[in-house]
């Protein structure tokens, strides 16, 4: 039997799944827009959320697979960070509104940085999916440049990270991620790899987590050179 090229099979399967997901998410969106019944609306939003989770995991799996196979090379493009964040957040506003969680973005219009949009979008989506479960009423996203680094921060007013999820900037590379307890482990692992793929002038990106968020909630930071 001819050996198959798994990476090709994967790529083509993902393509089909993405088409299906695209139709699914858009159809739910369309139904949701015409639904007045609040209960139905909540259920539809739940479906949306699950669709986004499937997509998010699909991206993570594919990217991690390709990195593992040394097939992923970051595509760093100069990107308007404000616009990028607005767009990434936009698809979550209605979802979070249902739970009365407000989202704010603090970033100046003229902040541009070299990022791999697919990777960072994957990082953001992952966090938003988690915060949908954990945040109480408020999420603050901010981006700024400090010396030669872009700092992206997401603070929430939930219970914060558990001890094993806490990563200081210096230990993130060595930390063993626990994939058994929850999906957060995989998410953080993905985020740290995504950060590391960003390199400039000999420096690599990294992540950190702390409980310096709002009212003792979580604070996730990603630093990109």
């Amino acid at each position: 039997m001819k050996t198959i090229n798994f990476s090709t099979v994967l790529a083509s399967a993902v393509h089909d799944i993405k088409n299906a997901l695209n139709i699914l998410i858009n159809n739910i969106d369309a139904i949701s827009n015409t639904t007045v019944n609040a209960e139905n609306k909540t259920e539809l939003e739940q479906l949306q959320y699950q669709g986004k989770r499937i997509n998010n995991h699909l991206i993570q799996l594919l990217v991690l697979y390709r990195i593992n196979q040394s097939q992923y090379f970051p595509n760093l493009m100069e990107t308007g960070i404000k616009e990028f964040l607005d767009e990434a957040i936009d698809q979550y506003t209605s979802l979070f509104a249902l739970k009365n969680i407000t989202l704010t973005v603090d970033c100046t219009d003229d902040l541009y940085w070299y990022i791999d949009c697919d990777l960072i979008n994957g990082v953001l989506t992952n966090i938003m999916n988690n915060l949908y479960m954990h945040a109480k009423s408020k999420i603050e996203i901010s981006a700024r440049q400090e010396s030669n680094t872009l700092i992206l921060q997401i603070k929430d007013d939930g219970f914060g990270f558990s001890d094993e999820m806490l990563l200081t900037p210096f230990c993130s590379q060595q930390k063993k991620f626990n994939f058994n307890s929850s999906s957060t482990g995989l998410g953080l692992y993905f985020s740290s790899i995504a950060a590391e793929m960003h390199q400039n002038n000999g420096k690599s990106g990294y992540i950190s987590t702390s409980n310096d968020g709002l009212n003792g909630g979580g604070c996730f930071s990603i630093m990109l050179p």
Partner: protein
Amino acid sequence: MNIWNLKNKSVLIVDDFDKMRLLIREILSPLMPQKITMAKNGEEAIELLEKQCFDIVLCDYKLGDGKDGQQVLEEARHRDLLKYNATFIMITAENTSAMVMGAIDFLPDDYISKPFTPSQLQKRLEKASRKKAQLDNIATAIYDKNYSKAITLCEQRLQESPTGQMEVLRTKGELLKKLGRLNDAENFYTSLLKERNIPWVRQSLGQVYFQKGNYSEAETQFKLLLKDNPANVNALDWLASTLEKQGELENSQNILQQAIRRSPKSPVRQRKLAAIALINGAYDVAEKAYEYAINECKHSCLSSMADCSGLIKSMIKQGKTEEASKSIENIQKNFKNNPEARFHTALASSVLYRETNELEKCRKNLETVLKLINSQSEEISTEAALDITKNCLALDNPELAINVIKQLVNNHSENEQLMNQVRDIYEKAGRSEEGNAIIQNTKKEIIRINNEGVKLAQDGKLEQSIDFFIQAAKGLPNNATINFNAAYSMIQQMKKTGDTGKYFSLSKTLLEQGHKIDPHNQKYFQLIKLVEDLSSQAA
């Protein structure tokens, strides 16, 4: 409430999945575009682009068996099927965006990853249109061939808002290269690289060194690019060209083979590999690459039936004459309605029968070839012309193709390498004097024509000189000197009258034609600078 809209805009949606097409149409309808057209594959998209002008093209990267989105974009840009201010957005899955953005020479205006929500797509479109509008004055200046003005506009824009101007930076660099301001371009790219190692900047810098003939420095840059990303096929292509220029043909072939393993769907790359492999004696490699390039004719405009002869030659070299004749039959069957295929398969057959010494069959096919030349207006390639000449000489009948060879020498008399090939062919047939005579006489005739035109200009009869050269350029479209001389007379006329309007664009077209024929001729850069100076004085 949508403030931004698509009023008066026509949109083309290309996707092989019918539900996706309908979905995108529904997303765009509220934006009130003038017209939405849909295509279910790349071939249909190209047909529509040939007939209509679209303001926005939304195209999926994966389009089933035929052309993919990247090939649609390449063909559209290559054949000028897109308006200069049209927006092309590629729809990708995450796993293809790097591939699309990696094809540095043919970039879409933006790309959007699936799955997307209606508002995401609308915002992406709005962003792309806004960007286009901001750069509209620069695009217009380039469209008018007003390159110096376009550079000034780029610089203004960079001063006004220094961040987020990748498009402008790229454009400025390209224009500097186009005007032959290679030192300026080198400094420009080097200073950008000091701040950050950006792949497209390094690639452009390597190209500048290549253009300067500094191949070792170009090689360094392309190798650095590949260290960061071994999958960068553009860098592999450029590295191969750089090695070829340095005479390292084996290495060049190896690099091209690497590039083809990563990305086989490029007929240009396959053809380049085939040609080098043929020289290197790697006939099996050449055969495979030619075959691929020919089969891509169904999908890509960059492909050509002219590869038939190469394919047949690489098979003959391996002693596979029977397979070769079967291959020709297959190509004839597969490309039944392609007039180019008729010409090139006949030519390939005559080459094959010359090699097998079946001269009667060789002659018959050659007659078909010559008949087809007379009935088509398009010029034949140098390769084909050389093959035809060889065949005629093998048949001991040089008169048969005398027009073909004269035309070839006429068009390329300044290309010494090619002239040597012609001499060689005649010498091998024991007719070296005849070959030399053809070349000498043609050269004399061209010099006479040029002298006559220059004389008219010197006598102050500039308008007459211009008319004369334009007429001569029609007969000798591939002669760089005539194109340059025609432009030079126009420049003098513009200087004299102070009116740049009449000849500004035409002189640039002629210069660009000459530059395309003979890229190493420095006259192009000298003359284009004169035109640019004139236009800035006028402004």
